[in-house]
């Protein structure tokens, strides 16, 4: 896969890791006491001894993945083989001229080879005819 597609995919990966991270944090965050004036909430009707899920490890993993994806993006950007656009245009023009000249040379060689092939074919036919005539006369 070319480097630009890899970079585009990496940007999309960063976005998906980010919204998964924030979404998970928002979904699993424990309730927060906004003011001391509000009463304590009633104990949960489900299992009261259930411990709230430990978010620390999950948060660490998700933030590590996010930072890692950003570092991968930086690495891919460093690997971009960029050159000056003007220099590229000049190189293309130079290569096109060289290609054109070689095309003409190739055409000349082909025509000369075709001529020689026809000449050799005539010589071969002449030789074959003479051989046949000699055999008939013998």
């Amino acid at each position, binding site marked *: 896969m070319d480097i630009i597609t890899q970079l585009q995919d990496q940007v999309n990966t960063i976005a998906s890791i980010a919204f998964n991270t924030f979404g998970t944090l928002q979904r699993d965050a424990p309730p927060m006491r906004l003011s001391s004036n509000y009463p304590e909430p009633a104990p949960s009707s489900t299992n009261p001894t259930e411990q709230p899920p430990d978010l620390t490890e999950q948060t660490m993993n998700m933030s590590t993945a996010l930072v890692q994806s*950003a570092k991968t993006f930086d690495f891919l950007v460093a690997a971009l083989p960029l050159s000056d656009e003007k220099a590229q245009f000049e190189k293309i023009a130079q*290569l096109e001229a060289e290609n054109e000249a070689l095309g003409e040379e*190739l055409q000349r060689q082909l025509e000369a080879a075709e001529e020689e092939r026809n000449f050799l074919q005539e010589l071969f036919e002449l030789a074959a005819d003479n051989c046949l005539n000699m055999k008939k006369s013998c």
Partner: protein
Amino acid sequence: MSTSAAYPPPPPFYKLYKDAKSGPDPPPPLPKGATYTLFGATYTTDDVLPSLEEQGVRQLYPKDSNIDYKKELRALNRDLQLNFLELADVLVERPSQYAQRIEEISTIFKNMHHLLNCLRPLQAQATLIHLLELQIERRKQAIEDIKMRRKEAQRMLKEAMEMLDG
């Protein structure tokens, strides 16, 4: 030409192509005008990447004809990480103000994708250079091949003539 009928008749220029014996087929005409309609959608004949301003997105990198793509992409990446931290901070301290952070993050992503899209023409030019180099190499090889074969044929002919004379 009827384009909105349920079963439109074939375009009238099919008659130009029905007889294979009447010489080479005429080439298709060039499109008239700057836009054309295809299956109900309008397209332009000039394929140009629209700028961020035309798409209604704020441009975060400087407007310069010579953009240092690597530097700008790295800067946008750092901005993005900073905005993620600020979003986390806003969600903890002032949760009602998340929208502005999300908008900023969205703008940064759009800028990153736009910069990567701007790299595509450069990639096409580099591919063209590579193809031209390959073609030049192949043509040089073919010329050398033909020269060698011609020399070989001339040598064999000369030997045959010498054999006949001797």
